[in-house]
């Protein structure tokens, strides 16, 4: 164990002291988050559309509330049934829904506590916060009018995932997926380097078990994957207000699975590449198309049909899809289970190839 740890530390040192490797593993993805965050994330001053659902049959209270909401200049209001408005929100036409349940008017008249419902999408935190604040003010003002300040009407917050997530929210998990892909695929380069220099051979002359050598590499890369994830998601949260709404444990699991699958691809590549120059070239040939075709920077749907087919063969498509689904409720390319199965498949197959074909000298 001591040996494994020391080797891992040696690997981390080698990485941290290698400027080119550092650039690709940390600064490149970070740069993209900032770049695209600024391009797409600018605070637009366009209005926020919300839906208003009156289930209280035009009671005095609901009419008053609707009037209050429609007077807010920042909002545009549409009305309809809850089903219709939910559909509209899921489709991305509106960002929130205010529901006045039946019986609200009667409850207010009796001065007994009641509440309206507010549906927002937590992954679109900026918009949601704006709507929540407005709703708070309006409800507060109504309480003042109706009951002299006693909180008769409350707000019951509801969440509803809108599929049409903001561009930045789309980009953050996608760029994380790209970073994990590069982290794994680029692992081929130091491996080939170490073989070419005879480092692997020299270590082969010591009693060190080979699995520890491989294990330390995997361990180091997985640690970097977690750092990458924290850095990228942190920047998304702090600078661009992209909230992670899904299960953090599931997200962490996906990060590790994704890193593992691409690491296996990196190892498999290293099995066939002989020189460092070859490795650098081939790794670029592998990672570049994935970077541009797997729906990282723009949605998969924008690709022409032929390229969509190509993209469906790329493992990055599924990692990015899975991360978006878990982290920001993104649109599905495939169901989450399929994403996970495909990534696991790549992991197993490439690991098998590497185990069979990897040469130590």
């Amino acid at each position, binding site marked *: 164990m*001591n*040996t494994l740890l*020391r*080797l891992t530390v*040696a690997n981390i*040192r*080698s990485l941290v*002291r*290698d400027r080119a490797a550092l650039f690709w593993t940390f600064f490149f993805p970070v740069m993209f988050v900032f770049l695209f965050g600024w391009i797409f994330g600018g605070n637009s001053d366009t209005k926020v559309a919300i839906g208003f659902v009156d289930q209280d049959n035009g009671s005095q209270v609901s009419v008053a509330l609707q009037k209050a909401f429609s007077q807010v200049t920042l909002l545009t209001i549409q009305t309809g049934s809850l089903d219709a408005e939910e559909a509209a929100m899921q489709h991305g036409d509106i960002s929130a829904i205010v529901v006045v349940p039946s019986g609200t008017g009667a409850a207010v008249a009796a001065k007994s506590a009641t509440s309206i419902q507010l549906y927002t999408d937590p992954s679109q935190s900026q918009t949601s916060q704006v709507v929540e604040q407005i709703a708070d003010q309006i409800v507060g003002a109504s309480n003042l009018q109706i009951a002299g300040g006693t909180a008769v009407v409350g707000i019951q917050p509801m969440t509803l995932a809108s599929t049409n997530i903001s561009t930045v929210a789309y980009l953050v998990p996608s760029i994380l997926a790209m970073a994990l892909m590069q982290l794994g695929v680029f692992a081929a380069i130091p491996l080939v380097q*170490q073989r070419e*220099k*005879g*480092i692997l*051979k*020299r*270590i*082969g*002359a*010591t*009693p*060190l078990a080979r699995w520890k050598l491989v294990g330390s590499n995997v361990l180091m890369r997985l640690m970097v994957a977690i750092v990458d994830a924290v850095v990228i998601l942190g920047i998304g949260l702090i600078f661009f207000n992209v909230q992670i709404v899904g299960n953090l444990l599931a997200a962490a699991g996906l990060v590790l699975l994704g890193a593992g699958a691409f690491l296996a691809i990196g190892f498999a590549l290293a099995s066939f590449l002989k020189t460092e120059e070859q490795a650098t070239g081939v790794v670029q040939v592998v990672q570049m198309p994935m970077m541009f075709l797997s729906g990282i920077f723009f949605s998969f749907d924008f690709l022409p049909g032929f390229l969509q087919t190509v993209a469906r063969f790329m493992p990055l498509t599924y990692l990015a899809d899975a991360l978006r689904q878990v982290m920001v409720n993104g649109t599905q390319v495939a169901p989450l289970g399929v994403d996970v199965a495909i990534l696991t498949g790549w992991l197993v197959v490439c690991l098998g190839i590497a185990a069979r074909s990897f040469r130590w*000298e």
Partner: protein
Amino acid sequence: MTQSGEPVIGVANLCKCYGDVKAVDGVSFQVARGEVFGMLGPNGAGKTTTIEILEGLREPDSGSVTVFGMDVTRHAPSIKQRIGVQLQTVSLYPRLTVTELLDLFGSFYAHHLPTKQLVDAVDLGERAKARSMNLSGGQQQRLSIALALVNDPELIFLDEPTTGLDPQARRSLWDLVKGLQAQGKSILMTTHYMEEAAELCDRVAIMDHGHILEMGTVPELIGRRFKERAVFFDTSLKLPSAQLGKLEGVTRAAQEDGQTVLYSRDVAGTIGALLALTDSLGVEPKNLGIRQATLEDVFLDLTGRALRD
């Protein structure tokens, strides 16, 4: 533990081919405990191949190879605990420092020496915090020797340990090797330097084309080939070679590197006759000298090639 009489290395009929190339072709030798054994041979003779098979890095095609009495192909892990390896080509993590590398390699073994002691042994104290990529070639070579000693091995393989070292560093490596031998360690080394083999090795094997041509102590090898001593002088003096061959005691006359060399059984008689001859011609031989045949002569004679191509 090996009994004192049992050899630490036993190689019998070892063969290893790479395609059509017979890199090692029926090699047999033994190295006794505490012995420094040298392998000499021109480039491509098969020295590195032999050593790396002994280190468990390459598979032999046929023949038996034992280290500490154990079959190398079957007991590699326990053998590796007890051997030290310096490969011909220097190979280290470029971005780790001298100290970090020694610590790291030490952790691969059940027992290892303190890093400070190793750094001092190869005189790298001043560069202990330098990354290996920033070391000079000779310093890298010394680091690679320190790494070979990290587990305090009983048997050490040194493949061209002094190639690339300056004369001073070479001398200090010789002292290091002698010190290791004094501690009772066994060493198998290769070299292209005759004076090094003569200085350090108890026995040497001369290899070419995958075969061992001769094996024994240095004086044995010289004595076996050369009963004569050599009388030499500058060739600029033109003397009829037919007459030189007939001078007293001379068995053979040759031209080597701008010198005329007379191999003689009777040095005094040969010189007397030579001076009488030059006197009669009214000339004087320049840089006249006498020497014993050297390992270099043996090597030339055996392989027809100079040791350093």
